[in-house]
């Protein structure tokens, strides 16, 4: 068998993928405040979200606890995942309305959120950098 088995398996996987999509199972979750809060309640039950930046594309939501703690909720397919960290622990940069947060994890990569305007993106960038004076608007 060997390589023939492998080729057949790959073909079968592709056909199963087509069948699954045909059955309407290609789905995407949205990370809004409500769904992101629910996910954080599971993953980080002691995190108290005070402020939110929900990406315009609905694929990620960033939250601050107002005391230098942050949590990101992101979508993968029809599920959500999360990460939590302290201000200054992750590099963040705002460029226009985009806020980019760098994660050094192999399974995560960088997260990009679309803010409503450039000022909002810049404000979150400053918060993430750990400037406590700017925690309030």
């Amino acid at each position, binding site marked *: *068998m*060997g*390589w023939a*088995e*492998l080729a057949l*398996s*790959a073909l*079968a*996987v*592709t056909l*199963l*993928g087509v*069948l*699954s*999509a045909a*059955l*309407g*199972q*290609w*789905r995407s979750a949205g990370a809004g405040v409500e769904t992101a809060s629910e996910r954080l309640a*599971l*993953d980080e*039950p*002691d995190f108290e979200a005070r402020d939110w930046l929900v990406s315009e594309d609905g694929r990620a939501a960033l939250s601050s606890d107002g005391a230098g703690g942050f949590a990101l909720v*992101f979508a*993968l*397919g*029809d*599920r*959500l*995942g*999360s*990460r939590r960290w302290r201000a200054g622990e992750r590099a963040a940069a705002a460029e226009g309305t985009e806020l980019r947060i760098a994660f*050094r*994890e*192999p*399974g*995560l*990569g960088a*997260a990009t959120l679309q803010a409503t305007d450039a000022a909002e993106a810049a404000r979150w960038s400053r918060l993430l950098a750990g400037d406590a004076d700017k925690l309030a608007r």
Partner: protein
Amino acid sequence: MIDYETLPPVVLYAIPGFILLIIAEMAAVRFGAPGRYETRDAMASLFVGTGSRLAGILGLGAIGYGVWTFFYEHRLFDLPATWWTAAIAFIGYDFFYYWAHRIYHERRWFWADHVIHHSSQHYNLTTALRQGWTGNVSGTFVFYTPLALLGFHPLLLAFVGGLNLIYQFWIHTEIIDRMGPFEWVFNTPSHHRVHHATNPEYIDANYAGTLIIWDRMFGTFVPERREETPVYGIVKNLRSFNPLVIAFHEYRSILRDLLSARSLKDAWGFLWGPPGWSPDGSRMTSTALKERWRRVHGGEADEAGEAALQPAE
């Protein structure tokens, strides 16, 4: 008498059955049966499963087989090649599987391979095939060497290992609810849903392969509670469907940690400590996750979760 040379490659023969059952489950879920599929997640699981076969094709299985053969050549007993011996081998393999599986969860070096199986946030038959690629390199076969030393032939061990894997395929489903008295002795979909859940009440429980009696005997059995729906995945879920990321992400994390280690003790902890271990305690092990859950939920934990938490400690 059994001729071990003629024992079939059962996992290979089971693949068409796996595919048919996946199609059946996929369709059943579409038309209202319990469970959920997401196309990219299912394809990722199946491609990862295909990759795990690649490891076998490349001959990595020879490493474990060679080690078993070495121990078999120094065996303590000459066991007859009968079906009774095969039945005892199956139960013996399942016993060592329990301990191996428990250690996969408790030691990061082995977790790096096994995390692959847990990395889907879905629980369906495709999840069963999301298997690690590196078990033969990381040394997971060592846990079964006592069986070879006792006199069980390596070909018989490979055969019963295949049967054990096939048994575990069908329990990766949400379609089957509880199974009555069968649940007392055998691993079932309900028991294994608990094993795949990240709910703090369910973490580190139900390591069994075929027989759940091992968990009941060694204090790691936790029943599925109707009021606590399992949430599947890992503590830090991935944001990728890429099979290569799924297969190697934890090894890359280990390497990064080793490069940042400030002492041999730290390096040892990163490699052989429990998943989530860090020198300064800033990350969370499963024990820390459970403690946090108790702290946050307080009385609720005492009333509702205590029974579930206790056996897993």
